[in-house]
């Protein structure tokens, strides 16, 4: 069989008090006066995820991650698909990120300016890259939490309708396969 690269890996049964996020009406959650958030994530945590994702993939001439509801998607995936150990690592990662933000800027991520957020995430990105470089392949060592956040953001964005059809080019039924010319600036296929 032809192989495809596996994107991410996941876990086992969740505890009984978790909420499966399938078929959630995200619009309703956003607008509800009292909300339980999505799965393991409170409404404010989902908001934080959206702010992080939107810093990584901001609005340009096409919508950004927040508009593509990447925060909701990340909460859904972590809640429904991650193993308990990976879920815990992810939650701790969010805490670590906030702590790093407090340390650097004296306030929470949500209260920071775009410049401050971007600078912080760039620092974390360098940190994850160093960590990943020194990770022994096949050791079972988990990824750096920011690597996970970034991977989920990119997947959540580029597989969303906004990402796939506006930031990228989407052709539902190509009808053929062939080599074509490419010039810099042509967008990739969704």
């Amino acid at each position, binding site marked *: *069989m*032809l192989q495809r690269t*596996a994107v991410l890996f996941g876990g086992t049964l969740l505890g009984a008090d978790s909420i499966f996020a399938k078929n959630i009406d995200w619009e309703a959650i956003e607008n509800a006066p009292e909300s339980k958030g999505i799965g393991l994530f409170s409404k404010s945590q989902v908001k934080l995820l959206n702010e992080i994702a939107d810093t990584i993939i901001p609005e340009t001439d096409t919508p*950004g991650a927040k508009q593509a509801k990447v925060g909701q998607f990340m909460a859904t995936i972590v809640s429904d698909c991650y193993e308990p150990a990976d879920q815990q690592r992810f939650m701790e990662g969010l805490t670590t990120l906030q702590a790093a933000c407090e340390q650097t800027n004296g306030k929470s991520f949500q209260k920071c300016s775009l410049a401050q957020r971007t600078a912080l995430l760039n620092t974390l990105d360098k940190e994850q890259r160093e960590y990943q470089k020194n990770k022994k392949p096949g050791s079972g060592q988990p990824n750096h939490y920011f690597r996970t956040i970034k991977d989920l953001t990119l997947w959540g964005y580029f597989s969303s309708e906004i990402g*796939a059809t506006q930031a990228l080019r989407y052709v539902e039924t190509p009808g*053929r396969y062939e080599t074509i010319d490419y010039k810099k600036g042509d*967008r*990739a*296929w969704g």
Partner: protein
Amino acid sequence: MKYDAIVVGSGISGGWAAKELTEKGLKTLLLERGKDVKHVTDYDTANKKDWEFPHRGRITNEMKATHPVQKRDYPYSEFKPDWWVNDLECPYTEVKRFDWYRGFHVGGKSLMWGRQSYRWSEWDFEANAKEGVAVDWPIRYADIAPWYDYVESFAGISGSIDGLPQLPDGKFLPPMNLNIVEKDVAERLRQKYEHRRLIIGRSANLTQPHGGRAGCQYRNLCSRGCPFGAYFSTQSSTLPAATATGNLTLRPFSIVSQILYDKNTKKARGVLVIDAETNQTIEYEANVIFVCGSTLGSTHLLLNSVAMGAMPEEVANRSGELGHNLMDHHFRCGASGEAAGYDDKYTYGRRANGFYIPRYRNFFGDKRDYLRGFGYQGGANRQGWSRDVAEMSIGVNLKTALTEPGKWTIGMGGFGEMLPYHDNKVTIDKAKKDKWGQYVLSIDCELKENEFKMRKDMMADGAEMLEAAGIKNVTTYDGGSFPGMAIHEMGTARMGKDPKTSVLNKWNQMHDVPNVFITDGSCMTSAACVNPSLTYMALTARAVDHAVNELKKGNL
């Protein structure tokens, strides 16, 4: 109820048996253990976009709990989960790790298969005899060649005419396109190596309308079912042909639990079916039975028939080889690298196929420290948004970079032949029962020294060829391979010349039960290194032709 013929299983082989039997005028009962799947109307996710799935294809913890084996690899996903078995309902015992992928529904794995379709060569059939391995095949290429012609012409296989002795050309529809990087690499390999060739994959995807079915639309969503009928499956091809004869009765939710042997007539008189929904048991009778329940499904049926006393051991397994000589292909190792100088080129369309490098090891005078060999499947494409862009910072720059394609990369993975070892076997485990009260299979199978030695070449050769073709930053990989993972499991009811050392004769006929034919992967006496389904199709059509001739002569 009595029929002229019964077919057990409606997958790649069973669909063909049903088509051939009904077209030759036999009233045929096609028994499928799983649910019905109607062509096109039941392909409920075939037109859905990724963002229409709550988890964009990723499996949830809920799904993992009921699919502890299916979850081990990519085929089981949120995109079409109901075509992969609930492992808890049909457990098995793993003496050593064996990843058993199954689909219980009309069409079986013909709906989800990889569609790569290659002929065996004479060198594959004679290998056992020449090397003193296992037993000799009772047939040669000349016996099966006209049947390859026959099944390819009906199924529609796209490919190029290449004139390679180790990979006979077939009756092909026009080939799919190689892209410019693949073409250039192919040319450089042709210049550098006398016997190594890179060709387009030979795929059961139509490249033009065929038999009332439309051509491939290059969406690469085959495993969800094709609304265009553009790849070969039971649903798109053999079932409509069988249905058109008016001779077919299809009964889903029918688990064939035992073959019923009649000591007086010395033939099978029929089968015992467990209704999968009601657990009611029903007997069906027929003059001839085709067992096409998948490699281990069929052998499980035979072993269970013996365990339950429906078939005497000396009749089902005189040779003692039933359950033995289990094989699969080993894979998940190879090489990849970057192709420079193609920044002004891209691809259009999503090709559900790749390139193929046919086997060259231990052929043409080459001699390695292992027997047999491997082919490669691979492809070249430009990296997408999941690539690491080290020099781009978070934010606008990163987004802009990722909306454009990245470097061209090319990779290839080897599929290696596994020898038949008597010790690689399945037996009945009476300590465990499935949802329907049947004893389960115990699977004891592993790769051995010959395979591990071969894997070294699979990586080293791949790297050497890529470097010779000018590819940069070449690396090798070995993701590990366990039997079952390739989903090409075969053997356990092998064909052979001698009833003392084989289960089936040259016609896929049980040596001691003349009206039972087994034509799925279980019949294979060796594994070659090519994807096997095309060979199952050809063996099935050939065996039906023989069976019907024998019936007409009054020999069955």
